[in-house]
């Protein structure tokens, strides 16, 4: 889905858009350096590792020799990215041309990481204080529940079972762009709202976080601090408890919001309180450069257009309702059918057939995921055909010419229009002509000349 890549990379664009001083300050934190390195395109990563111990600047020309002619475009993309994020600094020398050098702070941090191994941002709390921690499965179930509740509340406040602690103003910020509200009508999802629902979890998460961070300035929280805290969070170990008193006030407030999203679980002991990062949090840095979904699928699509979704989640039901007709819901199964009416409904809402098909493919049940193709071809073809049904009529702005004085003038006009490639339709019996708008002015000139 093209939308996914754009959103995930937009977070990095946000980082790159920070002023130079703030970015350099960010790089003093070793974890930021690692997270940003992991988000680079593969070729850029290689260049960084290669330049890690080189103190001198390397000329652009010698760098271009590292790639084959096929790879020049990727090379340029990688170099641009590195310059944008101020990892490479450019120097210009009249004799040798432009040359690049690695940002010294960045370089020092990475060198230390490579020789000394990875370090954790903070030590987990000993078991004596935290007693029993929730198991990894419990934690994942908790994270999923929180996230789905949040999403349900986002799109339709009436459906959510429990209310979240997120203030309504925050919710409105998140809903901006996803929902439209007309007076006296319940809020409806916009086109981007639908596309948002069909994206995979990590992309949705990054979208929400991006909105959260861009809104942070209004709440007097420094966005650079917030970004570094988010990236640092992804380096903690899932399921370990970390003391809250190691965080600043702002970070603690952020954590409370993140707990509502399902990224961390907050717990209170007798004296201390701690947070436990879930898989959603630790997967943050993975998804920066990744666009493929890796979670377990649940949908089986059959060749008779029936759909069986092995899921109990309300959110999945809502999403499937977007483009299929839900027939019945069993305790562990949602049965539906993909029909013409349901698809027309989806197309009306702005969802494209590609989005529906890639959603079905990415969420296909493990049983059918191995099959090629995971969604039967007749279903995918039919979805595309139904979409093209709606595009049968093509509109082009044109002008209509009537009442030609004589056949010769009409023929001349036809030929003239044909030469310019603007002839759309002609009727020689009644001497009528339809010409494209961009040729209209030329046609008028031509006819005026003809009359003289």
């Amino acid at each position, binding site marked *: 889905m093209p939308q996914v890549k754009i959103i995930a990379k937009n977070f990095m664009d946000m980082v790159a858009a920070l002023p130079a001083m703030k970015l350099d300050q960010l790089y003093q934190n070793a974890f930021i350096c*690692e997270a940003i*390195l*992991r988000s680079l395109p*593969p*070729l850029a*990563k*290689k260049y960084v*590792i*290669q330049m*890690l*111990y080189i103190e001198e600047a390397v000329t652009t020309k010698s760098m271009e*020799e*590292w*790639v*084959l002619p*096929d*790879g020049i475009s*990727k*090379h340029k993309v990688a170099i641009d990215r590195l310059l944008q994020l101020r990892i490479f600094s450019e120097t210009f020398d009249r004799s040798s041309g432009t040359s690049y050098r690695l940002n010294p702070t960045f370089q020092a941090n*990475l060198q230390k*990481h*490579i*020789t000394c*191994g*990875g*370090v*954790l941002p903070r030590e*987990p709390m000993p078991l004596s204080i935290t007693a029993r921690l929730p198991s*990894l499965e419990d934690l994942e179930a908790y994270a999923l529940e929180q996230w789905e509740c949040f999403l349900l509340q986002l799109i339709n406040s009436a459906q959510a079972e429990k209310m979240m602690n997120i203030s309504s103003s925050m919710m409105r910020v998140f809903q901006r762009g996803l929902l439209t509200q007309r007076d006296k009508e319940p809020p409806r999802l916009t086109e981007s709202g639908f596309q948002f629902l069909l994206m995979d979890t990590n992309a949705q998460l990054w979208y929400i976080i991006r909105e959260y961070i861009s809104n942070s300035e209004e709440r007097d929280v420094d966005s650079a601090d917030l970004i570094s805290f988010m990236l640092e969070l992804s*380096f903690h*170990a899932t*399921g*370990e408890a970390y003391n809250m008193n190691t965080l600043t006030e702002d970070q603690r407030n952020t954590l409370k919001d993140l707990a509502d999203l399902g990224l961390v679980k907050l717990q209170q002991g007798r004296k201390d309180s701690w947070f436990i990062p879930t898989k959603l949090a630790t997967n943050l*840095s*993975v998804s920066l*450069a*990744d*666009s*493929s979904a*890796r979670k377990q699928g649940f949908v089986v699509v059959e060749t008779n257009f029936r759909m069986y979704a092995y899921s109990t989640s309300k959110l999945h039901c809502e999403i499937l309702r977007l483009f299929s007709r839900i027939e019945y819901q069993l305790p562990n199964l949602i049965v539906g059918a993909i029909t013409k009416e349901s698809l027309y409904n989806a197309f009306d809402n702005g969802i494209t057939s590609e989005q529906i098909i890639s959603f079905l493919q990415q969420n296909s049940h*493990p049983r059918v*995921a*191995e099959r*090629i193709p995971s969604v039967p071809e007749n279903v995918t073809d039919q979805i595309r055909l139904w979409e093209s049904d709606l595009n049968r009529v093509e509109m082009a702005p044109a002008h209509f010419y009537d009442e030609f004085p004589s056949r010769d003038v009409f023929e001349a006009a036809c030929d003239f229009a044909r030469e310019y490639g603007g002839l759309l339709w002609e009727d020689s019996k009644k001497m009528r002509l339809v010409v494209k708008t961009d040729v209209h002015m030329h046609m008028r000139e031509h006819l005026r000349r003809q009359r003289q």
Partner: protein
Amino acid sequence: MASAPSKLYADDVSLLVVLLDTNPFFWSASSLPFSKFISHVISFLNSILLLNQLNQIVVIATGHNCCDYVYDSSSLANRSSGTGKLPAPSADLLEKLEEFVIRDEKLLKREPEGPIVSSLLSGSLSMALCYIQRVFRSGPLHPHPRILCLHGSQDGPEQYVAIMNAIFSAQRSMVPIDSCFIGAQNSAFLQQASYITGGVYLKPQLLDGTFQYLSTVFATDLHSRGFLQLPKSVGVDFRASCFCHKKTIDMGYICSVCLSIFCKHHKKCSTCGSVFGQPQSDAASEPSKKRKTGDA
């Protein structure tokens, strides 16, 4: 060479299996001390793990008498919830390596005869391929696997058959075998391995800069290799060794059924059991053998 298609993670997730040569006879005579070499290798392994959260590394030590796994970055011991540690090659790797070397020495039955002391490359290649096969069967999504041989000992012709079999099976599963050879003369086996499987063979000229060679040439994931200039192989030594005496030969006798190579005329093929005809026999039904030119 493109790697196994579809159902893989994002383009640059890799599984790197490193075959580390720990042959004591080689290292005692090498110009680069083993401790320095290991520090280069550990930095390189750390940089691979840094590039992507999902990258995995497995290190297999190739000894003189045995081979064993000494490090696996995805093993549960590294991710135990009690300590919450990130995968750290240095501590575990060195510990296990020491234990391995001691075990290897104990297995030494007698002093090796002759100047060529080879390590069990065939054994570690086979172990690497088995691990990779297990990963292939572990589910629909798996990382791009590749093998990196950090080798210095000379080739042992007695391992020719086993190594060639391993190379062909790697070619079949589309696993490239890269080699960084730190010994004195080029290794024909490793050159052939890299040539056949589409990997890279490198013999660094300055051993002090091993980390830079490793990070420049061998750190790239398989997808990006299509866009980079990598060292090309020139003059690969394709000579085979005979199956009977394990000598390297240029010309010899070949069984037409199973293509085994012999340096002297035999009555029967030792691999497939086909009976060879008499020299200069023109019986059409029996398998014939190629004649050594110049033979009367």
